[in-house]
């Protein structure tokens, strides 16, 4: 079945456009997630966003508003909890997420059509996206990418050298918050396509794959966006062909690209070099130069 036939129906074409946009956006944002070592946090963010999205849908307000508000609340709660004695960060995140997630499930279960809606939020339902969703995705995506472009050098410096950034007079914390909000926006935008549980995969995998092929940052972002969009298209095509869940298939394609690159990529792949043992230490011989002496 040719690609043209697979995407013959209008719903499929809408889904295709959504997949391309979401994939590209996630890829680009994912590079920053990796730079700051935030995969677990992004996963948590995806989980935490869920009740906010549910609440927003139930209240009939914008999903972004609901998700953003709830995400902010979660971040604050986690920070407050983690600051207490005997509550470490992981436990704080664990408790907050469990509570938030259960709350979301409770809210949904009190409605009819529980299973269907729940599934859509959790693993996506890209084939039901409407034109309105496409417009939202396009606008949010453009805004996020524009912000990333405008703040590129500050964000990169902040990832490698927070002290240096602060020393130059930049508001480091504010920039952190901005980035977190951009990630949050990306996660929420991905929900129609891949759902909250899988959003982290589409954000992290293409970027991780791109990192295996190139070291230059801008090239990595471009490559990640391309890989993300490609995963979207291929995944969607396969899912339409075989009639399986689209979001999950997209994620599997992205993961497959990563797995293959992990093995074959020149210089960084497993075949190209031996895995590093531990933290490499560059040893230099001291100026003393003498061999070991046994005094006395």
């Amino acid at each position, binding site marked *: 079945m040719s690609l043209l036939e697979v995407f013959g129906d209008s719903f499929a074409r809408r889904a295709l456009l959504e997949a391309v946009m979401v994939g590209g956006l996630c890829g680009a944002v994912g590079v920053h997630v990796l730079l700051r070592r935030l995969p677990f946090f992004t996963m948590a963010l995806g989980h935490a966003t869920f009740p906010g999205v549910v609440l927003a849908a139930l209240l009939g307000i914008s999903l972004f508003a609901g998700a953003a508000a709830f995400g902010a609340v979660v971040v604050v709660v986690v920070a407050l909890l983690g600051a207490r004695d005997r509550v470490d960060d992981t*436990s704080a995140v*664990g408790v907050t997420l*469990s509570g938030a997630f259960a709350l979301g499930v409770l809210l949904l279960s009190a409605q009819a059509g529980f*299973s269907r809606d*729940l*599934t859509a939020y959790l693993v996506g339902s890209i084939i039901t996206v409407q034109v309105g969703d496409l417009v939202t995705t396009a606008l949010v995506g453009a805004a996020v990418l524009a912000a990333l472009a405008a703040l590129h050098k500050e964000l990169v410096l902040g990832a490698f050298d927070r002290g240096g950034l602060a020393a130059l007079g930049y508001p480091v914390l504010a920039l952190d918050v901005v980035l977190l909000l951009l990630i949050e926006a990306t996660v929420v935008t991905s929900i129609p396509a891949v759902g909250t549980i899988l959003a982290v995969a589409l954000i992290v995998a293409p970027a991780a794959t791109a990192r295996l092929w190139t070291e230059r940052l801008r090239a990595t972002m471009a490559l990640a966006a391309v890989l993300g969009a490609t995963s979207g298209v291929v995944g969607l095509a396969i899912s339409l062909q075989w009639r399986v869940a689209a979001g999950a298939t997209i994620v599997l394609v992205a*993961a497959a690209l990563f797995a293959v690159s992990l093995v074959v990529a020149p210089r960084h792949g497993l075949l190209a070099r031996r895995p590093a043992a531990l933290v490499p230490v560059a040893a230099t011989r001291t100026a003393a130069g003498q061999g070991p002496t046994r005094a006395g």
Partner: protein
Amino acid sequence: MNLFEPFTIPYMQRALAEVLVLGALAGAVGVLVVLRRLAFVGDALTHTVFPGVVIAHLLGRSLMAGALAFGVLTAVLLTGLGSHRRVGDDAALAILLTSFFSLGVVLISRTRGFTADLTVFLFGRVLAIDRTDLVQTLVVAAVVALVLAVLHKELVLRAFDPEAAAAMGYRTRRLDLVLNLLIALVVVAAVEAVGTVLVIALIVVPAAAARLLADRVAAMTALACLLGAAGGWLGLAISYEVSVDHDLRLAAGATIVVVLVGLFLVAAAVAPLRRRLARDRVPAVAP
């Protein structure tokens, strides 16, 4: 609201027995998870066990068996990866988890009743627990309790001071594997009752609450078991009463989790008071 009346009905009795055992079991294992900050491992397991559950369901086998197979596999994988952490491994782990999960979703999506099945696997169906499920849970609980009792001092040593443990000759990797397997077993036992997504709450929340109030591992464990069981009972009772009296369907598993988080918040509020009382009782001693 009557918290005892719902349990005159047989299916509620079974559900109660299940959540009491699960709550205590998860609480006990949760102590080590919280002390070692392993919540991520627990979360990982809930993602990777899912395809096992789906495959078992599609093959018409016991869900627990499917979960067990994938749970053991994951525990082994995670133990291996855990000791080689470097930059980029968080990414690899996240990708691995979501791939497993996606595999499960893809497989189940081929069937009719996709969304209903997915919901059951993710959130459980504690009210549909039958006697076989209960027996399976009891067996798992017995195994886990035995291993915990036998290896207790070594597991606590490794949690407290891994360097000293290694220096004394303990293979910390093997101890880690044992703990990961125990966590996997708890997830497996909980799959039918509360589903893979909510089980992490059973593991982490009671133990995190107990940690706030206990100064010894033994006390922490006892308290975690108690809180876990109490959460199960209260959650079931409340969800039943609300559904019946106020015609508001509340998912049982989710209610249990919300109750547990509530208990945690109470513990968090009480903890500073308790510490102040304790400090007043202990006389100042010279170094």
